[in-house]
C-alpha cells in the first residue's frame, strides 16, 4: 500500500511536471503573440518543396498556436524576385517576410532591405523565443549574417548542394556494364572526370536511342538565367574557374585584365558543357532547375547535376518519380588538379544552394514576423521539414533517425552533404549579382543555340561584364 501511494505520488508529480512544462511551452508562443492576435503576416517565396511545406504545414501550425494568420505566396523564381524587390524598393510593406536566396543576400544587405533579427530580438526580449538559437544552424547561416556586425539578417529555411545524380539501377546492371566495357574499354562507374562523364553520356544516349533515355541532363534553357547558373556555379568551378571568373578585388572579368571569365579553362568548360547537349534530351534547351528534376525523375537521363532540393522526392516519392530506389549520389566530376586546389582552400566544386527568410524594412508587422521566423527556426520542426524538402539547415537534423533512414533511401545524399558540403560554396559576394547576370547570360544563350562559338561567347561576355562593372562604378 505504502509503495502504491509512493508510486502514485511520483506518477502524479511526474504528470504534473510534464503537463506544466508542456503547457508552459505551448503558452510561450501564445503569450508572446498576445499583442499581435488577429494580425496577418504575408510572405513570398519561390515554389520549392521546402517552401510548400511552410505554406501547407508550418504556417497553419503557427496560426493555430499564436492566432497570427500567415498568408504565404509560393510562386516562380522570377516572380518572387520581381515582387519582393519591388515591394522593398517602393516601401509598400506588402510582404512581412521574404525569401532571400543565398546569391541575392549581398544585394539586399547593400541596399539595407532587411531587418536585423539579432538586434530586434535583443531590443524586444518579450518576443525572443528560448527555442530559437542561431548557433544551432550549420555554417550556412553565416551567409545571412551582416559582415560588419555579425548579426543574423535571415533565418535559414533551406540548404542543399547540387550533387551528381546517376541511375544506380543502370550503372549496376551487369548487361549494361558489359556493353559499356565492350564499347569503351572502361568500367562503368560514376564519373570522376569530365572525359568519363562525356563518355558515359555518349554511351547511354546510344544505348537508350529506342528507350526515351539520354546520357545526361543539361540545365541549358536558351532564355532563362538557369543556364547561366549551371555553367558559372556548377560547371566552371569544376574546371577551376571560380566566382564567375570575376576578380573580387579589381572586378576584372577579361583574362587580359586579370579576370578568368574568358580564360582557357573557362572556354574549355563552356565547350564541354555545350557539347553535352548532344547527349541530352530535347527539353534540355528549355530546362531550368525544375525541368532538369522532371527529366531525371521521368527516367529520361542516366546522369546529371540536379539541385538537392529535388533529390528527396526524386529518390523516394513514387507519386512523382519513376526512378524511386534507382538513384545514386556522388560528387560532380572535376578536372585534374581541381580537387587538390579545393582541398587546400582555393576554390570549390559546385554550388551550395539555399535561402533564408528575412524581414523587409518595409514590413508593417515586424514583431509578428519575428515570431514566425523564430518558430520555423526551432530545432523541433526541422526533421519533418527535411523529409518533405530534402533541406537541412541544422546540425542536429542529420542525426535524427528519420533522416538517417531517408538518407539510406537516397543513397547517402545527406551524408554527402554533411561530409563533403565543405567542397561546395554559395554564390560570390557580389552586390551586382543581377546586373552582371543580365549582361552575361545572353552570350551563354547564344552559345547554347549555336549562334556563336563558346570561345567567342565568353570573350564577348567578359568584355560586356567589365563594361557593366565600370558603368556601375565597381571597376575603375
Amino acid at each position, binding site marked *: 500500500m505504502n509503495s502504491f501511494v509512493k508510486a502514485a505520488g511520483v506518477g502524479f508529480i511526474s504528470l504534473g511536471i510534464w503537463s506544466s512544462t508542456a503547457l508552459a511551452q505551448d503558452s510561450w508562443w501564445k503569450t508572446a503573440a498576445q499583442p499581435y492576435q488577429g494580425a496577418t503576416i504575408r510572405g513570398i517565396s519561390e515554389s520549392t518543396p521546402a517552401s510548400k511545406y511552410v505554406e501547407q504545414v508550418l504556417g497553419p501550425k503557427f496560426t493555430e498556436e499564436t492566432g497570427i494568420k500567415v498568408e504565404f505566396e509560393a510562386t516562380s523564381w522570377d516572380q518572387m*524576385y*520581381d515582387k519582393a*524587390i*519591388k515591394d522593398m*524598393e517602393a516601401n509598400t510593406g506588402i510582404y512581412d517576410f521574404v525569401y532571400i536566396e543565398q546569391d541575392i543576400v549581398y*544585394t539586399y544587405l*547593400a*541596399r539595407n532591405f532587411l531587418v536585423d533579427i539579432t538586434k530586434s530580438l535583443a531590443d524586444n526580449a518579450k518576443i525572443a523565443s528560448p527555442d530559437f538559437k542561431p548557433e544551432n544552424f550549420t555554417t550556412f547561416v553565416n551567409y545571412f549574417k551582416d559582415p560588419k556586425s555579425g548579426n543574423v539578417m535571415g533565418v535559414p529555411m533551406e540548404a542543399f548542394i547540387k550533387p551528381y545524380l546517376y541511375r544506380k539501377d543502370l550503372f549496376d546492371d551487369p548487361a549494361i556494364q558489359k556493353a559499356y566495357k565492350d564499347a569503351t574499354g572502361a568500367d562503368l562507374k560514376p564519373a570522376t572526370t569530365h572525359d568519363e562523364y562525356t563518355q558515359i553520356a555518349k554511351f547511354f544516349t546510344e544505348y537508350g536511342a529506342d528507350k526515351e533515355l539520354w546520357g545526361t541532363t543539361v540545365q541549358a*534553357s*536558351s*532564355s*532563362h538565367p538557369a543556364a547561366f547558373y549551371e555553367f558559372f556555379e556548377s560547371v566552371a568551378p569544376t574546371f577551376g574557374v571560380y566566382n564567375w571568373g570575376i576578380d573580387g578585388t579589381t572586378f576584372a572579368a577579361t583574362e587580359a585584365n586579370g579576370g578568368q571569365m574568358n580564360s582557357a579553362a573557362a572556354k574549355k568548360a563552356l565547350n564541354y558543357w555545350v557539347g553535352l547537349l548532344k547527349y541530352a*534530351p*530535347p*527539353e*534540355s*534547351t*528549355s530546362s531550368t532547375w525544375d525541368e532538369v528534376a522532371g*527529366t531525371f525523375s521521368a527516367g*529520361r537521363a542516366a546522369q546529371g547535376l540536379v539541385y538537392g532540393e529535388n533529390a528527396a522526392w526524386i529518390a523516394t516519392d513514387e507519386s512523382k518519380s519513376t526512378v524511386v530506389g534507382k538513384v545514386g549520389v556522388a560528387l560532380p566530376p572535376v578536372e585534374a588538379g581541381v580537387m587538390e586546389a579545393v582541398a587546400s582552400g582555393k576554390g570549390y566544386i559546385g554550388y551550395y544552394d539555399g535561402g533564408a527568410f528575412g524581414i523587409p524594412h518595409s514590413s508593417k508587422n515586424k514583431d509578428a514576423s519575428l515570431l514566425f521566423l523564430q518558430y520555423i527556426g526551432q530545432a523541433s520542426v526541422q526533421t519533418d521539414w527535411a523529409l518533405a524538402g530534402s533541406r537541412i539547415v541544422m546540425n542536429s537534423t542529420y542525426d535524427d533517425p528519420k533522416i538517417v533512414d531517408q538518407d539510406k533511401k537516397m543513397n547517402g545524399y545527406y551524408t554527402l552533404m554533411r561530409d563533403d558540403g565543405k567542397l561546395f560554396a554559395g554564390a560570390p559576394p557580389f*552586390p*551586382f549579382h*543581377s*546586373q552582371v*547576370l*543580365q*549582361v552575361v547570360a*545572353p552570350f551563354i*544563350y*547564344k552559345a*547554347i*543555340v*549555336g*549562334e556563336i562559338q563558346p570561345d567567342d561567347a565568353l570573350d564577348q561576355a567578359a568584355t560586356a561584364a567589365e563594361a557593366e562593372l565600370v*558603368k*556601375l*562604378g*565597381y571597376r575603375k
Partner: protein
Amino acid sequence: MRQSNIGWLFLTPATLILFVVGFIPFIYILYVGFFDWNTNAVDPTLRWAGLQNYRNLVFDTTFLNSLARTLVFAFFVVVSELLLGYVLARALMADRLWGRQFFRTIHTLPIVVAPIAVGATWRLLCVPGFGIVPYYLKLWFGIDYNISTNAYHAFGTAIIMDLWHWTPFVTLSLMAGLTALPKEPLEQAQIDGGNKLQIFWYVIVPMLKPVLLTTVFIRLMDALRSVDEIWMLTKGGPAEATRFIGLHIWINVFPKTDYGYGAAMSLLTLYVTIVLSWLLFVAMTGRKGGAQ
C-alpha cells in the same frame, strides 16, 4: 456656355485620373531619362547624364535589334489578323453557315483568356520533348520543331499565338463595321457592273476605313508592347530571337535596375509608336492630322 461648363464637369474625373496615371508618370520617366540611375551601383543616387542615355541608345545594337524585331512582329500580326479577321467576319455573317451563333461564341473565346494563360498554354503545347506540337510535327512530317533552339520556329510560334489570341477581336470589330454598312452603295455598285473585287476595294474598304483605322491602331499598339505572352512562351529566346522591345525594357528596368537607361528606352519607344501611328493615319486617310 452653360452646356460647355457641364461638359467639362463631366470630363473632370476622367481627366484627373488620366493626369495621375498617365501624365505624371510620363513626366517622371522624362525626368529619369536624363539621369544615370542604378540602385545597385556604387553610387545609387541619380546622376545627371543629360542626353547620354539617348545617345547610347542610338548605338545600342541589342536595343535596335529588339525594336526592329518588334516592328517586324507587329507588321506580320496586324496584317495577318486584318486579312484573317475579314475572312472570318464575312464567313460568320454568311446566312448559309450552319451553327453560326455557336461558331461565333467559340471563335470569340480566346479574347477572354488572360495573356499570361495564353502564353503558358502555348508553351505547354510547344515545349520541346513533351509538347504535342513538336511530337506530331515530327511524327507526321518529320519536322524537328524546336522553339528553344530555332529562332524562326520561336518567332513564327509567337506570331501564330498572337493570331490565335487576337484575330477574334479583329473579326468582331469588322463584323460590327460590316453590319453597319448601308446596303445602297453596294447595290448601286452591283448595278453599275462592279465585280466583287472592285466592290470590295472601291466601296467596302473606303466605307470601313474608320473601323479599320481603329482596329489597326489598337492591334498595332498592343503588338508593339507584347510582353506577358512572349515571356511565358519563350522568355525572349532562344537567345534573343523573341526579345521584343517591351520585354527588353522590362529586363533593363527590373532585373538590371538600370532606371535611367530604361526610362530613355521607354520614351524612345513611345516616340516610335506615335510616329508610326501618325504615318499609318496619314497613309490610310490622306490627312496629316485633325482626326474627326
